[in-house]
């Protein structure tokens, strides 16, 4: 589903975000990208939805060569990828319903389909009763659920989450992680970039750890830190 081969990313200002990264993610899997800030987690996600282009190497997402994709084809790629951020990125002057519908409307979906797809997505995240409410009247967890509803409303095959719980308290964090797990069980490939150790250690999913732009370790059913023997790598 997702494949990176020898991928490096150097920003125009000379910052090296990723070095020679190889990564394969199977369809329907759930993967944590961990590491502290500035290790290239967000950069890696940006390569997948072509917000950034690799300086070298190959990026393939859902059989599409992203690194050589023509600009005109980018919208089609992104309709297959849902993206969720730490700051939710909801439009404050639109209601929850309108925010979710917006993703469909701007991609030219027929009104008939919008009316069918928006309630289904709101129902999935448990926000049907808040459809007519503005984001400012929602809790952080609810706002993130609205953002997830928007990311999923077009039935993407992949959901990318960049620090989805970074702004949430522990109980909302648990709620969001359970929601992401339910979404994954329904068949969506989920990639979560996070530095929340508690979440990662509780879920016991595949953990890819980045350090200074390189993959440090990649474990099935892993922990945030690989065993006690690796404590030497602890920051600070």
């Amino acid at each position: 589903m997702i494949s990176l081969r020898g991928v490096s990313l150097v920003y125009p200002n000379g910052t090296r975000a990723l070095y020679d990264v190889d990564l394969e993610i199977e369809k329907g899997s759930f993967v944590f990208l961990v590491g502290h800030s500035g290790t290239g987690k967000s950069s890696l996600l940006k390569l997948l939805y072509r917000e950034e282009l690799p300086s070298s190497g190959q990026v393939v997402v859902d059989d599409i060569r992203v690194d050589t994709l023509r600009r005109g084809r980018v919208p089609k790629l992104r309709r297959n990828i849902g993206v969720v951020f730490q700051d939710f990125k909801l439009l404050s002057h639109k209601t929850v319903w309108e925010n979710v519908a917006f993703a469909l409307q701007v991609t030219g979906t027929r009104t008939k389909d919008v009316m069918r797809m928006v309630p289904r997505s709101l129902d999935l995240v448990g926000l049907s009763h808040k459809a007519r409410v503005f984001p400012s009247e929602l809790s952080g967890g609810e706002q993130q659920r609205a953002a997830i509803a928007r990311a999923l409303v077009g039935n993407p095959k992949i959901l990318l989450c960049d620090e989805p719980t970074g702004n949430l308290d522990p109980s909302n964090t648990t709620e969001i992680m359970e929601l992401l797990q339910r979404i994954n069980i329904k068949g969506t490939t989920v990639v979560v970039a996070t530095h929340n150790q508690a979440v990662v250690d509780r879920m016991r999913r595949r953990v890819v750890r980045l350090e200074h732009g390189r993959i440090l370790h990649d474990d099935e059913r892993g922990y945030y830190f690989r065993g006690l023997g690796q404590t030497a790598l602890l920051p600070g």
Partner: protein
Amino acid sequence: MDWGRLRFFLGEVFTNFTRNAGMQFTAIGTVAVTIVLLGAFLFVRDTIATFGNGVLSQIEIAVYLKDDVDDAKARGLAATFAADPRIASATYVPRRDGLKRMKDVLGSDFDTSLLTANPLPNAYHVRVKDPDLVPAVARSIDRDPRVAKTDYAADTVQKLLKAATILGRAGVALIALLSISAAIVIANTIRLTVFARRREIAIMQLVGATNMYIRLPFIAEGMLAGLLGAALAIGVLTLAAYEVVPKLASTLAFVTFHVNTLTLCFELLAVGAAVGLIASWFSVGRHLRA
């Protein structure tokens, strides 16, 4: 037709438009001023053209025939003139009529008693359909063996034609400059709207909206500003046409107003819409590439 989609689109345009109301008024005002000046220029040019054509159409070529060309031979020339498509009319003036005309024009200043014979040749007064062609027609008449000399107000014709050309060019340059400034104001307005909506645009790009789709509301907005500006200008021009021009006409006889009003309105609206379209197209395009 999917009314829901149309309603969503129009809603987006309306929200855009009202968000920057102040700047929009500036843009609309600039377009209106440009188009009022365009309208005023068209009016002045039209008036001068009408006046000039009136003068030019009265210019006659005086064709003086050789002394040995008698009445019968001279009348033969009428067929030659009739065959020339450029010639509107040709009036034969025999020498005795010519003398009589001279007396009529000059009156008592002209004492014919001193003349022993009629000094005037037989002549034709030729009118040309297109004033531009006067010199050419005169030259071709000159080549006829029966013709001694042709004469016309060469200087006047040439000067008028030159003035009309220069005025036309200056007007085009002026209108071009004004249109560019109007376009720049609209482009700046759209850039502000784009900036105000950068979150929406980022989300649209994230969920896979095409650049064309992102562009469309802004372009509609630019065209709307252009159209409203043009409509305002048409209002001002109409007022001018019915209030100011009749007063001018009463003092300056040559001022007339005979523009095809409906066509002109459509043309001015089209100019406004085009300026708005071009301005917003480039303004949004720059943002989308960034």
